[in-house]
């Protein structure tokens, strides 16, 4: 029959569609290079990195622990609640079931922000506990939903009958009712486990204190090509596949045996539950956090909130080894994102914001003065980044990286003449339509627009800001740019586009990886920025934070940071060393200091609000122009 062939073909395509990405992931987890498109040879390096990356292993551990506890709690509570509700007054039952439907009927993001608002409004510190509570909250409704129909189909007199025959109510519940509704309970538990294991949106909004599950980990790491993500995914795939195969083979074997002797598992799903416990234990054992090291600060934790892709490969590990403390690092990709978390009371010990944001944090009394007697690094710092207007005596901040903003370009596609003639207006030259990257930063996008128009980037003039906004809207609607953050780094290394707005440090990295790339700073001026370490008011481990600042500023760590990431080090020796070795001849590595149009960003609350709103509208305009 023709139809069957069509069906088989369709099924085949479907399976291909489902498994192609998974196969792809597995294959590229063994790739010897970083590329996601070309397989260059077999290697286990990404697995090695994954096992050495304690944050990654911990995220796996968190995912499983949360899923297991949430499943157990929500199954028990949900079942009890469902039994109770079935005997409640109709009106009570209807109302509770309606409320119970909220997480199922509402978009997940609504549930997520609702829970986030709940925790923040009532001052609950966000972290593992809030994530667990949230998971339990959205899992119970699914359990109730799958248990309820089973209870409805029970004879309502069953419990009475049991009690008439001498059971206590408890016995009637456990020995009579629960066994009858077992299939519903088990499928409820399965749904709960899957929902919790897979959850991203709710976890993302309610977590804090550096607690991440696998989804959050992948989300924050996905900006740069990172095959370790493939490795950890492959691990999960392998364990799940093996256990599901076992689950499905057991019944077949049993069936065969059943033909010989009749009594076997009463419940088909028991092996599923058993195997889940097995998976959970297996992954837990693999992912169990390593014991912390010995040292002066053994057992203490340092919470750092830093930019993504901003630390050298070994800095954190070296710090942990030296002090014995454990470092939990959270990553942000904009100052604003960092500010919101900090302003809402999230306790970190170290932050690495930019100049204008430090000014804001000082104004709003969110950071504390450094204890200079505990610091030994001030003399190592380049005079050019010391005593800047936002913190004149470095009372609050010690520089981490510094640089400028400019244009990264493909020298084979873009002529230097165009750049010199047009400056930032090259982003509106239709010759490069569809061939440009903008950077998703409100501050630097407005810097670009204002400088292109010949204004100061610190202007408070509403008209000039409005003009800059129009400039950006025109740019995104006519030029079809991609608005990116760290993705620009790998993409420019691959020469995917001709032009991009970029931070000097990222440009230095791009140029060191691909010699066809150039970096240009328009004469109309740029943003001279610096990012610095500060200690928030609500820091829990101030002493260790000072220790960290010293450590990061020392030659070895500063060298590791700067050579790995590409940003200019404030440590003068490191900068001198690297500009003659790794980054020799790369103009992006040494910030310019002789252009009168260059400025340092100054914080102004009213202007920020205006820019912030404009920028989110620019992005909406970009999206609508698609």
């Amino acid at each position, binding site marked *: 029959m023709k139809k069957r062939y069509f069906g088989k073909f369709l099924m085949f395509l479907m399976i291909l569609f489902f498994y192609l990405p998974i196969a792809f992931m597995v294959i590229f987890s063994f790739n010897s290079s970083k590329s996601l498109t070309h397989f260059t040879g077999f290697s286990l390096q990404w697995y090695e990195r994954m096992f050495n990356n304690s944050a990654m292993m911990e995220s796996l551990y968190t995912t499983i622990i949360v899923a297991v506890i949430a499943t157990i709690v929500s199954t028990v509570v*949900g079942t009890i609640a469902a039994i109770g509700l079935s005997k409640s007054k109709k009106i009570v039952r209807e109302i509770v079931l309606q409320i119970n439907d909220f997480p199922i009927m509402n*978009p997940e*993001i609504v549930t997520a922000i609702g829970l986030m608002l709940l925790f923040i409004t009532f001052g609950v510190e966000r972290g593992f506990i809030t994530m667990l509570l949230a998971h339990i909250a959205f899992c119970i409704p699914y359990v109730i939903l799958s248990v309820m129909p089973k209870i409805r189909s029970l004879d309502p007199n069953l419990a009475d009958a049991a009690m008439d025959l001498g059971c206590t*109510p408890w016995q009637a519940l456990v020995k009579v009712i629960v066994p009858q509704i077992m299939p519903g309970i088990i499928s409820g538990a399965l749904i709960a486990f899957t929902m919790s294991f897979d959850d991203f949106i709710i976890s993302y909004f309610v977590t804090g204190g550096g607690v991440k599950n696998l989804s959050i980990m992948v989300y924050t790491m996905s900006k740069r090509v990172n095959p370790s*993500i493939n490795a950890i995914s492959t691990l*999960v795939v392998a364990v799940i596949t093996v256990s599901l195969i076992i689950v499905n083979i057991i019944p077949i074997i049993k069936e065969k045996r059943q033909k010989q002797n009749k009594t076997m598992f009463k419940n088909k799903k028991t092996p599923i539950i058993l195997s889940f416990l097995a998976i959970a234990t297996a992954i837990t054992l693999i992912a169990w956090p390593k014991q912390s090291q010995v040292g002066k600060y053994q057992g203490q934790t340092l919470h750092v909130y830093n930019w993504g892709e901003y630390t050298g490969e070994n800095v954190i590990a070296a710090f942990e080894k030296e002090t014995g403390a454990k470092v939990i690092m959270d990553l942000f990709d904009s100052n604003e*994102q960092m500010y*919101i978390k900090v302003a809402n009371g999230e306790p970190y010990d170290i932050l690495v914001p930019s100049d204008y944001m430090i000014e804001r944090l000082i104004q709003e009394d969110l950071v504390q003065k450094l204890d200079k007697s505990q610091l030994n690094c001030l003399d190592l710092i380049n005079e050019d980044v010391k005593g800047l207007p936002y913190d004149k005596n470095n009372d609050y901040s010690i520089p981490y990286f510094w640089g400028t903003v400019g244009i990264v370009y493909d020298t084979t596609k873009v002529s230097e003449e165009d750049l010199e003639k047009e400056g930032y207006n090259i982003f509106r030259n239709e010759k490069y339509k569809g061939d440009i990257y903008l950077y998703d930063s409100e501050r630097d996008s407005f810097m670009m627009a204002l400088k292109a128009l010949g204004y100061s980037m610190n202007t408070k003039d509403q008209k000039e800001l409005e003009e800059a906004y129009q400039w950006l809207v025109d740019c995104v609607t006519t030029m079809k740019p991609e608005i990116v953050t760290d993705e620009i780094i790998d993409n420019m290394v691959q020469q995917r586009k001709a032009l991009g707005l970029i931070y000097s440090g990222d440009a230095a990295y791009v140029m060191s990886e691909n010699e066809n790339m150039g970096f240009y700073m328009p004469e109309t001026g740029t943003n001279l920025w610096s990012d610095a370490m500060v200690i928030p008011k609500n820091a829990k481990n101030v002493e260790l934070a000072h220790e960290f600042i010293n450590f990061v500023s020392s030659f070895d760590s500063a060298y590791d940071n700067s050579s790995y990431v590409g940003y200019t080090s404030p440590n003068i020796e490191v900068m001198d060393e690297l500009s003659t070795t790794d980054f020799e001849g790369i103009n992006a590595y040494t910030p310019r200091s002789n252009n009168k149009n260059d400025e340092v960003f100054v914080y102004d609350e009213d202007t920020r609000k205006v820019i912030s709103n404009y920028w989110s509208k620019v992005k909406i305009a970009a999206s609508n122009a698609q």
Partner: protein
Amino acid sequence: MKKFSQLAVPYIVWSAIMLLLPVLLIAFYSVTDSGNSIVNFKFTFAHFQKFFTDSSFLLILWRSILIAIKTTIICVLIGYPVAYFISRCQERVQNILVLVITLPMWINMLVRTYAWIGILSDGGIAQTILQFFGLGNSSLLYTEEAVLLGMVYNFIPFMILQINTSLSKMDKSLLEASADLGANHFLTFWKVVFPLSLPGVISGISLVFLPAVSSFFIPKLLGGGQFFLIGNVIENQFITVGEWNFGSAISMIMAVIMMLSMYAVRHVEARNSGKRKEKKA
């Protein structure tokens, strides 16, 4: 018996705090103007006004709904034949096929979406295949099509499983009866099988449409930073802009739209099944 009803009390308290209160808080934030605290607030409808008077917000809402509708239609068009095929297989094969479709769902959604980045990026396998067939050389990643693909990929299993459940529950003797009464395959499908599978299609639609409208990581990973849907606007308001009141207002608008459309879908379904029952009687 009364004792059993007391078992519900803890959950009633819990659901009031963990399920009802959050929604009330969003509603509260959406009509007040006090930043991120609930001390010293003032009631205002400015946030709703801001949303409804700005065409770019309305356009983005419309585009989110449109892309969710597209996703849903594709999921029905592809998912239905697949589910139908599965339901016509032998039981053992059926179980295996259902497992094959469920298996990827156990693997984290973000991880699976991330995997598409490599396939779709420039010089990747998808582009190579398209070039081989001479179908152009354009970028695949960071386009609307990539987002659509990601959504279909993530949500189609729900559709297939829902339709398959309703198809395989169907009494097979109905098909024989229909054939006995002279209907051909097509007529049997159209008059018997399809109407009976509608509840599955409808619950599939709600399982696909709902997450598709509000999704924000699929557009972000596969659409790039310049691809905004309403979910991204909400995320942006909470994570980067910090206008929680406005973000809450958008969430309320979205929640209301979703609630209404879900009730509409369920209402249509209820009316249909009502008619069927009447006919039977």
